């Protein structure tokens, strides 16, 4: 079907003719199963579980029937799982019934999970019993039902024909997920994405990289982020290929061994993963991997060059965001067509432009805000009409990322418009941490910045002003943050400004707004140690493996 005939929002219309061969995720899975039922689809090395397309199709129908006994069709559920078959079974089972899935980051603190569960208006929470210790306090506090789901093997057997007949009609423009990302005000915001969003983006990426049923993706990013669910899962499914899922926390040391063992040809990572792999003494021996998609944070040119020189695998940098499903631009394929240092050219499904502060398009070579429109763009933010009006204004999604386009149509990413911290690919607004610090009885004001880290891109540094400068130590304040924030959001460094001789208070502008940029400059000039950046202590100097 032609996407233009669907009821699209203004910012979902592009100048391109976009075809949508599958109305929804279930149709996509069913079609690919019909093409090659016995082809291997999912591989989970940690538990030695493998599923063909036919096996997983039946599992998804079983999960769908099981979910129907807990949730109404077109309702909303939260799911808290690692990269397991259970995550995918609940996901595919739910979306086949039009149920909207809200994947929750397993690393979040209970209070952060609670906010998402409440804000999403979900009917129930499904979770991995391995996370029981973390979920237990929420179960005690909340009236919403929590359902542990341990093993897809426990799903009741299902008659595929009957199960198919019981599925409701799910339109392409129906929401499929709400993905929560960090918000400027301190609370995360839910990005509402549709079946159409993911499928058009997945097909565009298949075509861009010429993926085929022989493609074997290795997924080392968490499925609760859209990169895992769109690039690794949806894209490989659109190609009819196979996917190897690994726990992101356990994958670094085994990455090349898994590539060799399973013949992985394709993967998608953050620059921090490339930096970590480069620091380790392990190599791939069989040359299976043909390309790596990379984005989510700035990729230093030296990192890219060193990685490619050592491992011989080309990196394809792109530009994207959760609000545009995943990527909207990529460097050209194959590798010799790339323009290194750029995030490539716009995908054929969408449009991109660069605008000034008045939303006027600027000439090529001029810096401005990068904007996207097309069928890969989200409906908007869940229950945030004012933010929607601001970010999706004038028929374009305004990314908040600054960059430019050259005469050949290549885009360059330069910086964020705001103070967003990107640590190992995780996006964190300072307000999330400042809100927590402001509740400490001895903190009068605080400001949080991202500071350079050789592996993660950014680390978090908090500047605090204390009522009594001697009443708390830096480590006490870090522990205080740990009570309310996921580990990846906790400051690595706290600077008590009362103890600084040359900065009596936080720098502020005329409206008394804290100037984070001035703090970053101060950190760079006074506190950073650019010459003495030590290698991470876990790096081994020997080579083996």
């Amino acid at each position, binding site marked *: 079907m032609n996407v233009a005939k669907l009821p699209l929002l203004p910012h979902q219309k592009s100048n391109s003719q976009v075809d949508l061969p599958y109305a929804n995720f279930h149709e996509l899975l069913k079609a690919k199963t019909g093409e090659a039922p016995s082809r291997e689809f999912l591989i989970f090395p940690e538990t030695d579980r493998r599923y063909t397309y036919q096996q997983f199709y039946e599992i998804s129908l079983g999960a769908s029937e099981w979910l129907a006994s807990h949730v109404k069709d077109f309702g909303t559920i939260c799911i808290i799982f690692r990269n397991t078959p259970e995550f995918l079974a609940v996901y595919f089972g739910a979306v086949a019934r039009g149920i909207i899935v809200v994947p929750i980051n397993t690393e979040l603190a209970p209070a952060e999970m609670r906010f998402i569960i409440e804000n999403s208006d979900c009917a129930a929470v499904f979770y*991995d019993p391995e*996370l029981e210790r973390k979920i237990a306090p929420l179960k005690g506090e909340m009236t919403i039902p929590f359902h542990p789901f341990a093993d897809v093997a426990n799903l009741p057997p299902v008659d595929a024909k009957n199960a198919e007949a019981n599925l409701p009609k799910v339109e392409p423009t129906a929401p499929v997920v709400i993905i929560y990302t960090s918000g400027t005000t301190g609370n995360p915001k839910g990005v509402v994405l549709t079946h159409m969003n993911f499928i058009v983006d997945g097909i565009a990426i298949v075509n861009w990289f010429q993926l085929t049923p022989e493609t074997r993706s290795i997924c080392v990013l968490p499925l609760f982020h859209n990169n895992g669910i769109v690039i690794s899962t949806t894209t490989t499914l659109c190609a009819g290929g196979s996917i190897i899922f690994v726990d992101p926390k356990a994958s670094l040391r085994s990455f090349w061994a898994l590539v060799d063992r399973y013949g992985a040809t394709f993967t998608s990572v953050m620059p921090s993963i490339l930096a970590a792999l480069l620091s380790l003494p392990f190599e791939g021996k069989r040359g299976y991997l043909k390309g790596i998609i990379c984005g989510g944070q700035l990729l230093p040119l030296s990192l890219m060059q060193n990685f490619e020189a050592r491992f011989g695998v080309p990196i394809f940098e792109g530009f994207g965001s959760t609000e545009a499903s995943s990527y909207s631009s990529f460097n050209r394929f194959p590798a010799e067509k790339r323009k290194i240092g750029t995030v490539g050219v716009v995908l054929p499904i969408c449009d991109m432009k660069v605008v000034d502060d008045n939303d006027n398009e600027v000439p090529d070579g001029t810096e401005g805000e990068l904007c996207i429109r097309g069928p890969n763009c989200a409906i908007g933010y869940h229950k945030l009409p004012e933010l929607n009006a601001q970010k999706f204004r004038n028929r374009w999604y305004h990314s908040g990322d600054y960059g430019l386009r050259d005469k050949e149509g290549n885009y360059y990413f330069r910086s964020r418009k705001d103070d967003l911290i990107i640590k190992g690919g995780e996006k964190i607004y300072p307000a999330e941490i400042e809100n927590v610090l402001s509740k400490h009885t001895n903190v009068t004001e605080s400001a949080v910045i991202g500071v350079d880290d050789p592996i993660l891109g950014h680390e978090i540094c908090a500047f605090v002003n204390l009522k009594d400068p001697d009443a708390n130590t830096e480590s006490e304040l870090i522990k205080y943050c740990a009570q309310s924030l996921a580990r990846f959001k906790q400051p690595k460094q706290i600077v008590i400004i009362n103890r600084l001789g040359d900065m009596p208070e936080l720098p502020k502008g005329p409206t008394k707004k804290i100037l984070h940029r001035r703090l970053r400059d101060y950190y760079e000039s006074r506190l950073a140690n650019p010459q003495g950046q030590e290698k991470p202590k876990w790096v081994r100097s020997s080579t083996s493996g």
Partner: protein
Amino acid sequence: MTQQELYAEVSPIATQILQIPQFESSVNMSSTPEWDSLNHVQLLSAIEKKFGIEISPDEAFKLTSADRLVQYLHGILKGKQ
């Protein structure tokens, strides 16, 4: 070495690297935020050094709980005897 003895040997290393109070059989990567990807690499390297072994990258990704790690070590060290 019994599994109990192995726990006694591994616990001081793990509690120091992961910065957690105890390394007991209920500890797993999923519910221990401190057990992140970089600490996993560091933990396995420290264990290799302590026991004079090499943990195969083919197995390293499976060692995601205290129990799995100790059981794996038990098997490796038994094989070395």
